[in-house]
Protein backbone atom coordinates (compact mmCIF):
# COMPACT_ATOMS: atom_id res chain seq x y z
CA UNK A 1 0.00 0.00 0.00
CA UNK A 2 2.85 2.29 0.85
CA UNK A 3 4.36 1.66 -2.55
CA UNK A 4 1.02 2.39 -4.19
CA UNK A 5 0.69 5.62 -2.25
CA UNK A 6 4.17 6.68 -3.26
CA UNK A 7 3.46 5.71 -6.85
CA UNK A 8 0.25 7.72 -6.84
CA UNK A 9 1.96 10.74 -5.40
CA UNK A 10 4.90 10.46 -7.79
CA UNK A 11 2.44 10.13 -10.65
CA UNK A 12 0.68 13.35 -9.67
CA UNK A 13 4.00 15.19 -9.38
CA UNK A 14 4.92 14.01 -12.88
CA UNK A 15 1.55 15.29 -14.10
CA UNK A 16 2.20 18.63 -12.38
CA UNK A 17 5.50 18.85 -14.24
CA UNK A 18 3.57 18.55 -17.47
CA UNK A 19 1.28 21.34 -16.25
CA UNK A 20 4.35 23.42 -15.44
CA UNK A 21 5.52 23.09 -19.03
CA UNK A 22 2.00 23.69 -20.35
CA UNK A 23 1.66 27.00 -18.50
CA UNK A 24 5.36 27.44 -19.10
CA UNK A 25 4.86 28.01 -22.79
CA UNK A 26 2.49 30.87 -21.97
CA UNK A 27 4.77 32.30 -19.30
CA UNK A 28 7.77 32.10 -21.63
CA UNK A 29 5.86 33.95 -24.35
CA UNK A 30 4.72 36.52 -21.78
CA UNK A 31 8.31 37.11 -20.65
CA UNK A 32 9.41 37.69 -24.22
CA UNK A 33 6.72 40.17 -25.12
CA UNK A 34 7.02 41.99 -21.81
CA UNK A 35 10.71 42.43 -22.54
CA UNK A 36 9.93 43.74 -26.02
CA UNK A 37 6.94 45.93 -25.19
CA UNK A 38 7.33 47.02 -21.59
CA UNK A 39 5.57 50.41 -21.94
CA UNK A 40 2.50 48.76 -23.50
CA UNK A 41 2.45 46.13 -20.79
CA UNK A 42 2.60 48.83 -18.12
CA UNK A 43 -0.35 50.62 -19.64
CA UNK A 44 -2.31 47.39 -19.75
CA UNK A 45 -1.38 46.41 -16.23
CA UNK A 46 -2.46 49.75 -14.84
CA UNK A 47 -5.92 49.17 -16.26
CA UNK A 48 -6.37 46.16 -13.98
CA UNK A 49 -7.69 46.64 -10.47
CA UNK A 50 -5.03 45.66 -7.94
CA UNK A 51 -7.62 45.29 -5.20
CA UNK A 52 -9.36 42.46 -6.99
CA UNK A 53 -6.09 40.75 -7.83
CA UNK A 54 -4.92 40.98 -4.23
CA UNK A 55 -8.30 39.87 -2.89
CA UNK A 56 -8.32 36.86 -5.20
CA UNK A 57 -4.77 36.00 -4.16
CA UNK A 58 -5.84 35.97 -0.53
CA UNK A 59 -8.90 33.87 -1.37
CA UNK A 60 -6.81 31.26 -3.17
CA UNK A 61 -4.24 31.12 -0.40
CA UNK A 62 -7.09 30.55 2.02
CA UNK A 63 -8.38 27.74 -0.15
CA UNK A 64 -4.94 26.12 -0.09
CA UNK A 65 -5.01 26.31 3.69
CA UNK A 66 -8.42 24.67 3.89
CA UNK A 67 -7.32 21.99 1.41
CA UNK A 68 -4.26 21.19 3.52
CA UNK A 69 -6.43 21.05 6.61
CA UNK A 70 -8.89 18.74 4.85
CA UNK A 71 -6.08 16.29 4.14
CA UNK A 72 -4.84 16.61 7.69
CA UNK A 73 -8.32 15.79 8.95
CA UNK A 74 -8.22 12.58 6.95
CA UNK A 75 -4.80 11.79 8.35
CA UNK A 76 -6.19 12.01 11.90
CA UNK A 77 -9.46 10.34 10.99
CA UNK A 78 -11.94 13.18 11.48
CA UNK A 79 -14.65 12.73 8.86
CA UNK A 80 -16.73 15.79 9.66
CA UNK A 81 -13.74 18.09 9.50
CA UNK A 82 -12.71 16.59 6.16
CA UNK A 83 -16.05 17.40 4.60
CA UNK A 84 -16.14 20.84 6.20
CA UNK A 85 -12.73 21.84 4.95
CA UNK A 86 -13.39 20.46 1.47
CA UNK A 87 -16.59 22.48 1.24
CA UNK A 88 -14.74 25.56 2.49
CA UNK A 89 -12.13 25.01 -0.25
CA UNK A 90 -14.87 24.82 -2.84
CA UNK A 91 -16.57 27.94 -1.58
CA UNK A 92 -13.32 29.89 -1.71
CA UNK A 93 -12.56 28.54 -5.19
CA UNK A 94 -16.00 29.49 -6.41
CA UNK A 95 -15.61 32.93 -4.86
CA UNK A 96 -12.38 33.39 -6.78
CA UNK A 97 -14.11 32.56 -10.03
CA UNK A 98 -17.07 34.75 -9.17
CA UNK A 99 -14.91 37.80 -8.46
CA UNK A 100 -12.86 37.19 -11.57
CA UNK A 101 -15.67 36.73 -14.02
CA UNK A 102 -18.12 39.33 -12.72
CA UNK A 103 -15.93 42.12 -11.41
CA UNK A 104 -12.93 41.79 -13.63
CA UNK A 105 -13.71 40.16 -16.95
CA UNK A 106 -17.15 41.63 -17.33
CA UNK A 107 -15.82 45.05 -16.43
CA UNK A 108 -13.01 44.70 -18.98
CA UNK A 109 -15.51 43.69 -21.63
CA UNK A 110 -17.58 46.79 -21.01
CA UNK A 111 -14.47 48.93 -21.15
CA UNK A 112 -13.58 47.46 -24.58
CA UNK A 113 -10.45 45.80 -23.32
CA UNK A 114 -11.06 42.28 -24.62
CA UNK A 115 -9.03 41.54 -27.78
CA UNK A 116 -11.19 40.12 -30.52
CA UNK A 117 -14.36 41.40 -28.87
CA UNK A 118 -14.42 45.08 -29.68
CA UNK A 119 -11.07 46.12 -28.33
CA UNK A 120 -10.59 49.88 -28.59
CA UNK A 121 -7.11 51.39 -28.62
CA UNK A 122 -7.36 54.63 -26.67
CA UNK A 123 -5.54 57.71 -27.98
CA UNK A 124 -4.19 58.58 -24.54
CA UNK A 125 -1.99 55.46 -24.75
CA UNK A 126 0.11 57.12 -27.42
CA UNK A 127 2.58 55.18 -29.53
CA UNK A 128 2.64 52.24 -27.16
CA UNK A 129 -1.08 51.79 -27.69
CA UNK A 130 -0.66 49.49 -30.69
CA UNK A 131 0.74 46.73 -28.47
CA UNK A 132 -1.63 47.07 -25.53
CA UNK A 133 -3.92 44.41 -27.02
CA UNK A 134 -0.97 42.01 -26.71
CA UNK A 135 -0.96 42.51 -22.93
CA UNK A 136 -4.65 41.81 -22.78
CA UNK A 137 -4.25 38.69 -24.93
CA UNK A 138 -1.93 37.38 -22.25
CA UNK A 139 -4.16 38.57 -19.45
CA UNK A 140 -7.19 36.72 -20.77
CA UNK A 141 -5.33 33.63 -22.02
CA UNK A 142 -3.40 33.16 -18.77
CA UNK A 143 -6.19 33.90 -16.35
CA UNK A 144 -8.58 31.99 -18.59
CA UNK A 145 -6.43 28.88 -18.64
CA UNK A 146 -5.97 29.24 -14.90
CA UNK A 147 -9.73 29.58 -14.40
CA UNK A 148 -10.30 26.48 -16.52
CA UNK A 149 -7.97 24.56 -14.21
CA UNK A 150 -9.87 25.93 -11.21
CA UNK A 151 -13.18 24.77 -12.66
CA UNK A 152 -11.75 21.31 -13.20
CA UNK A 153 -10.44 21.46 -9.64
CA UNK A 154 -13.91 22.31 -8.36
CA UNK A 155 -15.25 19.28 -10.19
CA UNK A 156 -12.64 17.08 -8.56
CA UNK A 157 -13.41 18.61 -5.16
CA UNK A 158 -17.10 17.87 -5.59
CA UNK A 159 -16.36 14.21 -6.16
CA UNK A 160 -13.97 14.16 -3.20
CA UNK A 161 -16.51 15.81 -0.91
CA UNK A 162 -19.07 13.16 -1.72
CA UNK A 163 -16.51 10.41 -1.14
CA UNK A 164 -15.38 11.98 2.14
CA UNK A 165 -18.96 12.29 3.29
CA UNK A 166 -19.33 8.56 2.72
CA UNK A 167 -16.32 7.92 4.91
CA UNK A 168 -13.97 6.72 2.16
CA UNK A 169 -10.94 8.51 3.60
CA UNK A 170 -9.28 7.62 6.88
CA UNK A 171 -5.73 7.23 8.21
CA UNK A 172 -4.56 4.33 6.05
CA UNK A 173 -6.19 5.50 2.80
CA UNK A 174 -6.50 9.10 1.74
CA UNK A 175 -4.33 9.28 -1.35
CA UNK A 176 -7.04 10.72 -3.66
CA UNK A 177 -7.25 13.66 -1.25
CA UNK A 178 -3.49 14.03 -1.08
CA UNK A 179 -3.07 13.81 -4.82
CA UNK A 180 -5.90 16.25 -5.53
CA UNK A 181 -4.42 18.55 -2.94
CA UNK A 182 -1.19 18.65 -4.91
CA UNK A 183 -3.17 19.67 -8.00
CA UNK A 184 -5.05 22.38 -6.10
CA UNK A 185 -1.86 23.82 -4.60
CA UNK A 186 -0.27 23.88 -8.04
CA UNK A 187 -3.16 25.95 -9.38
CA UNK A 188 -2.64 28.28 -6.40
CA UNK A 189 1.06 28.61 -7.23
CA UNK A 190 0.26 29.56 -10.83
CA UNK A 191 -1.88 32.40 -9.51
CA UNK A 192 0.86 33.44 -7.06
CA UNK A 193 2.95 34.22 -10.11
CA UNK A 194 0.14 35.58 -12.26
CA UNK A 195 -0.78 38.26 -9.72
CA UNK A 196 2.51 40.22 -9.72
CA UNK A 197 3.23 39.48 -13.37
CA UNK A 198 -0.11 40.79 -14.60
CA UNK A 199 -1.28 43.30 -12.01
CA UNK A 200 1.91 44.88 -10.73
CA UNK A 201 3.90 45.68 -13.85
CA UNK A 202 5.70 48.98 -13.72
CA UNK A 203 4.71 49.81 -10.19
CA UNK A 204 1.72 51.79 -9.00
CA UNK A 205 3.53 54.71 -7.49
CA UNK A 206 2.61 58.22 -8.48
CA UNK A 207 4.24 58.92 -11.81
CA UNK A 208 3.84 55.20 -12.61
CA UNK A 209 6.27 52.92 -14.53
CA UNK A 210 9.68 53.58 -15.93
Amino acid sequence: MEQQREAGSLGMWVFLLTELMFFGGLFASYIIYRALYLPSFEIGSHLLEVKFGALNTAVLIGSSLTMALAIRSAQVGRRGAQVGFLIATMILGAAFLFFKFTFEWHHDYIEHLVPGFGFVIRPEWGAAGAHVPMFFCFYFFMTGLHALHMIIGLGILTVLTVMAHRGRFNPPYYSPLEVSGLYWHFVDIVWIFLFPLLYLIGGRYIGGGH
Partner: protein
Amino acid sequence: MSEHIVPTKIYMGIFVALLLLTALTTGIAYVDLGAWNTVAALAIAVVKMLLVVLFFMHVKYSSGLTKVFILAGVLFFAILVTLTLADELTRHWSPTPSGWGALLPFSTPFY
Protein backbone atom coordinates in the same frame (compact mmCIF):
# COMPACT_ATOMS: atom_id res chain seq x y z
CA MET B 1 5.32 11.06 0.42
CA SER B 2 5.62 10.33 4.12
CA GLU B 3 2.97 9.76 6.69
CA HIS B 4 4.22 12.85 8.48
CA ILE B 5 1.26 14.78 9.87
CA VAL B 6 1.92 18.49 9.87
CA PRO B 7 0.56 20.29 12.94
CA THR B 8 -2.31 22.72 12.31
CA LYS B 9 -0.27 25.49 13.89
CA ILE B 10 2.32 25.21 11.14
CA TYR B 11 -0.33 25.38 8.45
CA MET B 12 -1.83 28.49 10.07
CA GLY B 13 1.60 30.03 10.33
CA ILE B 14 2.32 29.43 6.67
CA PHE B 15 -1.08 30.85 5.78
CA VAL B 16 -0.39 34.06 7.70
CA ALA B 17 3.05 34.31 6.15
CA LEU B 18 1.55 33.98 2.68
CA LEU B 19 -1.00 36.71 3.39
CA LEU B 20 1.70 39.02 4.72
CA LEU B 21 3.85 38.39 1.67
CA THR B 22 0.88 39.19 -0.56
CA ALA B 23 0.40 42.46 1.28
CA LEU B 24 4.12 43.14 0.98
CA THR B 25 4.24 42.57 -2.74
CA THR B 26 1.18 44.75 -3.24
CA GLY B 27 2.60 47.48 -1.05
CA ILE B 28 6.04 47.47 -2.67
CA ALA B 29 4.37 48.10 -6.01
CA TYR B 30 3.43 51.54 -4.71
CA VAL B 31 7.06 52.41 -3.95
CA ASP B 32 9.39 53.55 -6.70
CA LEU B 33 12.27 51.10 -6.93
CA GLY B 34 12.77 51.36 -10.65
CA ALA B 35 13.75 48.07 -12.22
CA TRP B 36 13.97 46.49 -8.77
CA ASN B 37 10.17 46.51 -8.50
CA THR B 38 10.10 43.53 -10.82
CA VAL B 39 12.90 41.77 -9.00
CA ALA B 40 11.18 42.28 -5.66
CA ALA B 41 7.83 41.04 -6.97
CA LEU B 42 9.38 37.91 -8.45
CA ALA B 43 11.47 37.22 -5.36
CA ILE B 44 8.42 37.46 -3.14
CA ALA B 45 6.47 35.19 -5.51
CA VAL B 46 9.26 32.62 -5.37
CA VAL B 47 9.24 32.68 -1.56
CA LYS B 48 5.47 32.20 -1.53
CA MET B 49 5.81 29.32 -3.99
CA LEU B 50 8.45 27.68 -1.79
CA LEU B 51 6.21 27.95 1.25
CA VAL B 52 3.33 26.30 -0.60
CA VAL B 53 5.55 23.60 -2.14
CA LEU B 54 7.47 22.73 1.01
CA PHE B 55 4.64 22.84 3.53
CA PHE B 56 1.23 22.63 1.89
CA MET B 57 2.50 20.12 -0.69
CA HIS B 58 4.64 18.32 1.91
CA VAL B 59 7.79 18.36 -0.18
CA LYS B 60 9.80 19.18 2.94
CA TYR B 61 8.86 15.73 4.17
CA SER B 62 9.07 13.97 0.81
CA SER B 63 11.65 11.71 -0.77
CA GLY B 64 14.62 13.06 -2.65
CA LEU B 65 13.15 11.69 -5.86
CA THR B 66 10.24 14.13 -5.66
CA LYS B 67 12.62 17.02 -5.15
CA VAL B 68 14.74 15.96 -8.12
CA PHE B 69 11.66 15.78 -10.34
CA ILE B 70 10.58 19.29 -9.33
CA LEU B 71 14.02 20.72 -9.97
CA ALA B 72 14.14 19.01 -13.35
CA GLY B 73 10.83 20.62 -14.32
CA VAL B 74 12.02 24.06 -13.28
CA LEU B 75 15.26 23.54 -15.19
CA PHE B 76 13.49 22.72 -18.45
CA PHE B 77 11.16 25.68 -18.09
CA ALA B 78 14.26 27.83 -17.64
CA ILE B 79 15.76 26.35 -20.82
CA LEU B 80 12.62 27.23 -22.78
CA VAL B 81 12.70 30.83 -21.59
CA THR B 82 16.45 31.39 -21.84
CA LEU B 83 17.13 30.05 -25.31
CA THR B 84 14.03 31.68 -26.79
CA LEU B 85 15.02 35.01 -25.24
CA ALA B 86 18.52 34.48 -26.66
CA ASP B 87 16.95 34.83 -30.08
CA GLU B 88 14.25 37.43 -29.46
CA LEU B 89 16.47 39.87 -27.60
CA THR B 90 19.46 39.66 -29.92
CA ARG B 91 17.60 40.00 -33.23
CA HIS B 92 18.61 43.57 -33.71
CA TRP B 93 22.24 43.15 -32.77
CA SER B 94 23.18 42.38 -36.34
CA PRO B 95 22.20 44.72 -39.14
CA THR B 96 19.54 43.61 -41.58
CA PRO B 97 21.05 43.42 -45.03
CA SER B 98 19.16 45.38 -47.63
CA GLY B 99 19.52 43.71 -51.01
CA TRP B 100 22.29 41.53 -52.34
CA GLY B 101 24.80 44.34 -52.38
CA ALA B 102 24.83 44.52 -48.62
CA LEU B 103 26.28 41.02 -48.46
CA LEU B 104 29.38 41.83 -50.51
CA PRO B 105 31.65 43.30 -47.88
CA PHE B 106 31.01 40.31 -45.65
CA SER B 107 34.46 40.51 -44.25
CA THR B 108 33.34 41.88 -40.95
CA PRO B 109 35.06 39.60 -38.53
CA PHE B 110 32.90 37.79 -36.06
CA TYR B 111 34.02 38.82 -32.64
